[in-house]
C-alpha cells in the first residue's frame, strides 16, 4: 500500500494558507515572504545538487541569469507579461544549464564547487564591465503587465505574491516527487558510489546532468521571482558570497526535504533582518554563531526538529539522510 505522502500534503496545505495571507498580512511581510520563496527556490536547487553529492558554490550564476532575463525581457524582447517573463527566465536557465552542464558534470567534489564558483564570478565580471547593463549598479526592472493588463502597483504586488505562493508550492511539490522518483533515488545513490550505480545499470553522468539542469531551472525561477519583487537586479546576484548564502540556508534548513528549504530561508531572512535591527554592529556575529550551533548540534538542519515532532517516525539511518 502506498504510504500517505505527508510532505506533499503539507506543501499543498502550506501553499493554500500562505496564499490566503494576502488578505491579512501587512505589506512588508508579504514582500518578505516573496523574497523568502525566491531564495528558497535557489536553495532547492542547491539541495537537488547536494543530494547528488555535488556542492555548487555558483548557483548565483543561474539566479543572476533568471533575474537579468526578467529585467531585460522588456527592453530587449518587448516581453512585459509577468508570466511570460517567468517562462523566459526558466528557458534561459534551461538553455544555459544544458550547455554548461556538459562541462560541469565531469567534475566532482571540491572541483565542481570551485568550477561553479569560477563560472559565477566570470558572469559577475562580464556584467560588471558592461556599461550598457548598468555595470555594478545594475538596473531597475519595470513593472510587468499581467495577462496583457497594466495594473496598479498594489494589485501587481498582490499578483506577484500569489504567483510566488503558487510557484513555490508547485516547484516544491514537483521536486519532492522528483526526489521520490527513480531518478531521485538514483541521484542519492550516485552521491554515495558512482561505480555501484554503474553496475546497477544507470548512467551516473546522465543522472548528474539531469540534476544539474533541473537545478539551473529552479535557480533561474528564483532569480526571476526576486527581480519581479525587488524591482532591481545587479551583478551582485552572481557574486560568490551570495551563493555561499544559499548553501548556508540549505544546511540550516536541512537537505532531507524540500519543505526544509523554505523553512531554512524563512528562518534565515527573519534572523538576519531582526539581527540587523537589534544589533546593527554585530549581525554577522549572530548569524555566524547561529550557523555554527545549528551545524554542530543539528547536522541535518532544522528539519530534524520537524521530523522529531511527527509521532511514530522511525529514526532514519545515516544512509537515508542525504549527507
Amino acid at each position, binding site marked *: 500500500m502506498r504510504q500517505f505522502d505527508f510532505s506533499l500534503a503539507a506543501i499543498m496545505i502550506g501553499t493554500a494558507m500562505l496564499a490566503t495571507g494576502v488578505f491579512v498580512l501587512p505589506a512588508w511581510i508579504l514582500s518578505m515572504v516573496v523574497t523568502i520563496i525566491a531564495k528558497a527556490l535557489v536553495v532547492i536547487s542547491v539541495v537537488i545538487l547536494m543530494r547528488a553529492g555535488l556542492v555548487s558554490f555558483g548557483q548565483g550564476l543561474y539566479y543572476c541569469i533568471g533575474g537579468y532575463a526578467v529585467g531585460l525581457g522588456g527592453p530587449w524582447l518587448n516581453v512585459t507579461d509577468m508570466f511570460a517573463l517567468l517562462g523566459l527566465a526558466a528557458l534561459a536557465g534551461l538553455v544555459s544549464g544544458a550547455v554548461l552542464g556538459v562541462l560541469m558534470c565531469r567534475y566532482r567534489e571540491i572541483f565542481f564547487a570551485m568550477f561553479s564558483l569560477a563560472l559565477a564570478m566570470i558572469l559577475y565580471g562580464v556584467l560588471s564591465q558592461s556599461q550598457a547593463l548598468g555595470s555594478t549598479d545594475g538596473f531597475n526592472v519595470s513593472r510587468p503587465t499581467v495577462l496583457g493588463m497594466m495594473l496598479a502597483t498594489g494589485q501587481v504586488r498582490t499578483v506577484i505574491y500569489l504567483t510566488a505562493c503558487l510557484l513555490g508550492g508547485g516547484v516544491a511539490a514537483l521536486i519532492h516527487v522528483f526526489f521520490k522518483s527513480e531518478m531521485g533515488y538514483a541521484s542519492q545513490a550516485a552521491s554515495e558510489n558512482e561505480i555501484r550505480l554503474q553496475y546497477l545499470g544507470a548512467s551516473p553522468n546522465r543522472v548528474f546532468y539531469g540534476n544539474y539542469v533541473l537545478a539551473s531551472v529552479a535557480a533561474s525561477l528564483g532569480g526571476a521571482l526576486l527581480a519581479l519583487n525587488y*524591482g532591481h537586479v545587479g551583478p551582485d546576484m552572481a557574486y560568490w558570497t551570495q551563493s555561499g548564502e544559499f548553501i548556508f540556508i540549505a544546511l540550516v534548513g536541512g537537505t532531507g526535504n524540500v519543505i526544509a528549504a523554505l523553512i531554512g530561508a524563512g528562518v534565515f531572512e527573519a534572523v538576519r533582518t531582526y539581527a540587523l535591527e537589534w544589533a546593527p554592529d554585530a549581525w554577522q556575529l549572530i548569524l555566524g554563531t547561529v550557523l555554527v550551533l545549528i551545524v554542530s548540534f543539528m547536522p541535518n538542519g532544522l528539519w530534524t526538529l520537524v521530523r522529531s515532532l511527527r509521532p511514530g517516525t522511525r529514526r532514519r539511518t545515516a544512509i537515508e539522510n542525504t549527507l
Partner: protein
Amino acid sequence: MKTKAKPFSLTMLSLLTATAFLAAPTAAGAQEPLKIALVSFYSGPVSGPVGIPSRNGADLIIEAINAGTLPAPYSGAGVGGRQIESIYVDEAVDPVSEYRNAVQRQGVDAVVGYASSGSCLGVAPVAEELQTLTLLYYCGSVRTFEEGPKEYVFRTMNTQDVENIGAARYVLDTMKDVKSISGINQNYGWGQESWRDFSKSLQQLKPDITIKTELFPKFLSGQYGAEVTALSRNKADIIHSSFWGGDLDAFILQASPRNLLKNQTAVLTTGGTALQSLAKHIPDGTIIGVRGSGGVLAPKSDFNDWFRSEYEKKYGEVVTFPAYYMAQAVLALKAAGDIAAQKSGNSPSVDDIRTALRGISFETPAGTVAMDRHNGHQASTEIAYGTFKLQDGKPTLENVKRYAPECVIAPEGTNSLDWIEAGFPGAVCN
C-alpha cells in the same frame, strides 16, 4: 499607498487638534517626533572611511537640532519644532528590502542615506511607491534622476560627474600644457563612470590629449604592484584616480616609494580622506578633491569652525568629508521643516517638509547648498580642488579653486553625459 491605515475617528481627532493650534503660530507642547532612518554602510570595508563618519556627522547635527544649539542661521529646537528620532539601518544587507522594512515595519517618516549607487538606484522606485520622503546623501550616480523624475526622492549632494568635470577644469587651469593622461579606477560603476566623465571632459576641453593607460583593478584588491609598474612604464602627465578608502591608502602607500606620484601628477578626486594619515607619502603637487566642498576644502565660515570643533570634541578625531554630507542631508530637513512651520504656523507634516524641500537653498558647514536641479530635487553646490603641499610637516592645500555650479553642472533639463559630449554648452566659468 502607505499601508498604515488610520481609523476615521483618529483622523477627526487629529484634524480637530490641528485646527485648535492654528491660532498659535509657534506650536508648543507635545509634537510628534520625526522618525528618520539613517542608512549607510555600518559593516564591511566601506564602514570605516564612509559609513561611520557619516553616521557621526549626522548624529552630531541631530543632537544639535534637538537641543536647539545649531549656530546661525538656524534657530529653534527640532525640525519645525519636531524632535528627531533616528534609527540606524545597515546598507550592507539587501538595501531595498531593508528600506521597505524601515518604512513599513518600523514606521519611519523619512529616510536619509545610501552611499552606494546601486542602492540609490534600487531604493528610488520603492520610495516613490511607498511615498516616503527619501534624501540620498552620498551616492554619485546620475541615473537616479536622469532615468525619470521623482516626487519623493531628493539628493543633497552633487553627482559624481560634477567632481570629474571639476577635476578636468582644475587640471587645465593648473597644467595648461597637459598632453597625456592615465587612469586607475576601481572596476565598478563608480570607478568606470568617474574615468569616463573625466577623460571625456578633458578631451572636450583640449582635444589633443592622448590616453596612455586605463586600469580598472578589482574593487578592494589592495595590491597594486603590477598596476604601478604598468603606469610607470607608460608615463603620462596626469594620473586620474577616484580610489577611496582602503584602496586609496594602499595605492598611495605602494606608489609613493616607487616615485610614481612624483614623476606623474595624480588627481585624486576623493583624496581628502588620506590627507591626515598619509601626508608624508603624498608628494607635493598632487591634486586633491573632496567630492564637493566639504572636509578640508570647506570654505571658511563660523558654521564650519563650529562643526569641526564639535566633531573633534565628540569623537576625538578630525572630521572627514563623508560626515559633512550626511550632516547636510539632515540640515536640509531642518531648513525645510523650519520654513514649513513658519508658513503654516504649526508643526510640519512630512509632506509639508517635502514640499518645502523643493528648490530650497540652505547653509551647511560645506557652504550653501541649492536644490535647483531636476525640478528642485537635486542639489548643486560648488566643487573645490586644491594642490597638496607639505608645509612644516603639515599637509596643506594651496592653489584652491572653487568652481561654481554654472561651470560644472549640466543645466536643468540636460543629461550630464550629453552635456559633456556636446562640449558644455552654456557653461559659465571664470
